[in-house]
């Protein structure tokens, strides 16, 4: 998509390039706010939502409530983390939903009626995910073909393969060893494993992206692939790695899915690709690459799942739920955009008094 790449098109859209060269001269605090504002506004929306729901129904935040919130969002946060890494490189991975489904089913048939432990399952899921990611990644990076088309194709291929394999079979929770199910429902010190795992993956990814050359190079590639090539960045390898990572995370999430839900049919996470992409977009990552952080994407994922839970708890008429979710979603991205626009405009005006 060529939208929003540094264009000043349209009188109303304002100029996104309005960050002053003399930003230095503007008070530091303001400049810093701008840098963080992406995560701030989404985080703010999340806090508002949670507080509002809690006021209306205090049981929303009791022990079971918090646990449910964390558990519900854990897998989406994971997927959003993986997706962000790909989106940062100006690519997209629409096949995640299918990968989760395939991996969950594969892991399910692997452990069904056996006594394999959680580690084996997670390894299997991850390996399968890496494989899928490598195929997409190889096509995108070495085949130099548009990511959206390739991964949409992969979405169909993997989904078809998964369905053909399962062909109506289903993994029953009863057949899954308890040690695996424990991973999905158990926890340490009352905190369930799943959110802990997601948080760990998220933190490591964020740290890598911020503090390692490889991570910075992903930003560079997304910002300008052409410049990245000229700067001697191993473009193809990095993009391939990004896809492998996204695939690995999705495969891993598939294994967790099995652990959490026990009952699995081949279309687990069917249609999640758009949810994951919206989490990423709501979280402030530019779909054109190079901008945003995984923290934002994680906040976006949290916001989306919390919205769903909150509406049920608020006893909203189920026929209205989806419409309200849509409005909230649009409100969140609009607010984010407006805040950012206002700040950059304000900064521009202070540049040269």
């Amino acid at each position, binding site marked *: 998509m060529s939208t929003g790449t540094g264009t000043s098109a349209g009188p109303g859209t304002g100029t996104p390039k309005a960050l002053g060269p003399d930003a230095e001269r503007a008070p530091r605090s303001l400049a810093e706010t701008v840098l963080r504002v992406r995560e701030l506004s989404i985080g703010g929306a999340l806090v508002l939502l949670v507080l509002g729901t809690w006021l209306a129904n205090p049981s929303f935040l009791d022990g*079971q409530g918090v646990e449910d919130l964390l558990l519900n969002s854990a897998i989406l946060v994971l997927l959003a983390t993986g997706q962000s890494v790909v989106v940062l490189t100006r690519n997209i991975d629409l096949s995640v939903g299918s990968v989760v489904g395939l991996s969950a089913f594969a892991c399910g048939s692997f452990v069904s009626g056996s006594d394999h432990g959680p580690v084996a399952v997670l390894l299997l899921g991850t390996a399968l995910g890496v494989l899928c990611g490598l195929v997409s990644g190889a096509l995108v990076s070495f085949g130099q073909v548009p990511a959206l088309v390739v991964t949409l194709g992969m979405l169909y291929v993997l989904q078809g393969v998964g*369905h053909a394999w399962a062909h*109506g079979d289903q993994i029953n*929770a009863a057949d899954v060893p308890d040690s695996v199910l424990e991973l999905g429902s158990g926890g340490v010190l009352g905190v369930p494993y799943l959110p802990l795992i997601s948080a760990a993956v998220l933190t490591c990814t964020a740290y890598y992206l911020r503090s390692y050359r490889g991570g910075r190079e992903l930003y560079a590639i997304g910002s300008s692939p052409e410049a990245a090539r000229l700067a001697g960045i191993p473009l193809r390898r990095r993009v391939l790695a990004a896809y492998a990572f996204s695939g690995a995370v999705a495969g891993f999430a598939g294994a967790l899915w099995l652990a959490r839900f026990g009952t699995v*049919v081949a279309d*687990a*996470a069917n249609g999640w690709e758009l949810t994951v992409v919206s989490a990423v977009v709501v979280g402030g990552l530019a779909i054109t690459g190079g901008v945003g952080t995984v923290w934002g994407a994680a906040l976006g994922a949290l916001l989306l799942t919390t919205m769903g*839970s909150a509406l*049920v708890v608020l006893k909203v008429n189920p*026929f209205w739920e989806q419409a309200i979710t849509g409005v909230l979603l649009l409100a969140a991205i609009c607010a984010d955009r407006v805040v950012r626009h206002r700040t950059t405009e304000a900064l521009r005006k202070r540049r040269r008094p």
Partner: protein
Amino acid sequence: ALTLALAGCSGTTKDDAKDDAGSAKEGARNAKADPDAPLKEGLKLAFLPKQINNPYEKIVDEAGIEAAGEYGGQAKEVGPSDAKASSQVSYINTLVQQRQDAILIAANDPNAVCGPLKQAMKRDIKVVAYDSDTHKDCRQLFINQASSEDIGRSLIQHTAKQLGHKGEIAILSATQNATNQNAWIEFMKDELEKPAYEDMKLVKTAYGDDDDQKSFQETQGLLKAYPKLKAVISPTTVGIAAAARYIGGSSYKGKVVLNGLGTPNQMRKYVKNGTVEQFSLWDPEKLGYLASYAAASLSSGQITGREGERFTAGELGERTVGKDGEVILGPPTVFDAKNIDDFDF
């Protein structure tokens, strides 16, 4: 206002919408039934489930396909991988093109499949609905697992007994538009009107879209939103399994009653660990078996789908076509800790 009125006058409104339904069927029905005709050899039958990868539908269809082997027919299962209202239509069209002898369909949407099914009947292809009905003009027979009324009322009756006729209850259904679900829910509501249930209240109907994960979260939401909730009824196999999993793994276990329709293999664990006391379901294999024989009898001319006609359904013995071309399988089985190990499906 004027134009509106004019349009109102000259326009096509609901009242003058003509329904030529049935004319196709009448044509087919004019043929006379010959109860003594033997089942034809080599009949071509096609099962068109709601969704090809739904485990429950698969059991039904496989049993039906096996049954076809008994009388020397050839049956197959084709269908979409999503349960969309419209996605069955193109399959009906191709089945017509392939000149099958009979189409057996579990309709995703009673209206959407109607037109193409009529086209099929015009071409002398027999149409049997099972599991989920279409309009009675658009098929010759409907093999009903149990009467909708029985299912709906008995679910309330069983649950009420478990609760001592007191407390808030909620329903976890499949999609908002599932015909059979909505029919059952209507009967449940009707049953609840009776004075015996005056202390019971249906607080909400939630929709899990027959999606495991969504059903799971909907259960969560229900219990959170209605702290006084005493029972959840989920008349769908996907929903009840998901609900059982959530309740079984949460602090609500043992405090909230779960009842509904489920398969023994899915529910065995939760019956054994005490999350669920009982649930019910008919035998899906028998449903497929009966449907298969009914279709064969139709195609062989033994019956035409008129009320009162009789045909023999293999091991299941003789069956009679009821009102509106309905053939009823029989009352559902109630599964509990005592009998669950006798079943494997």
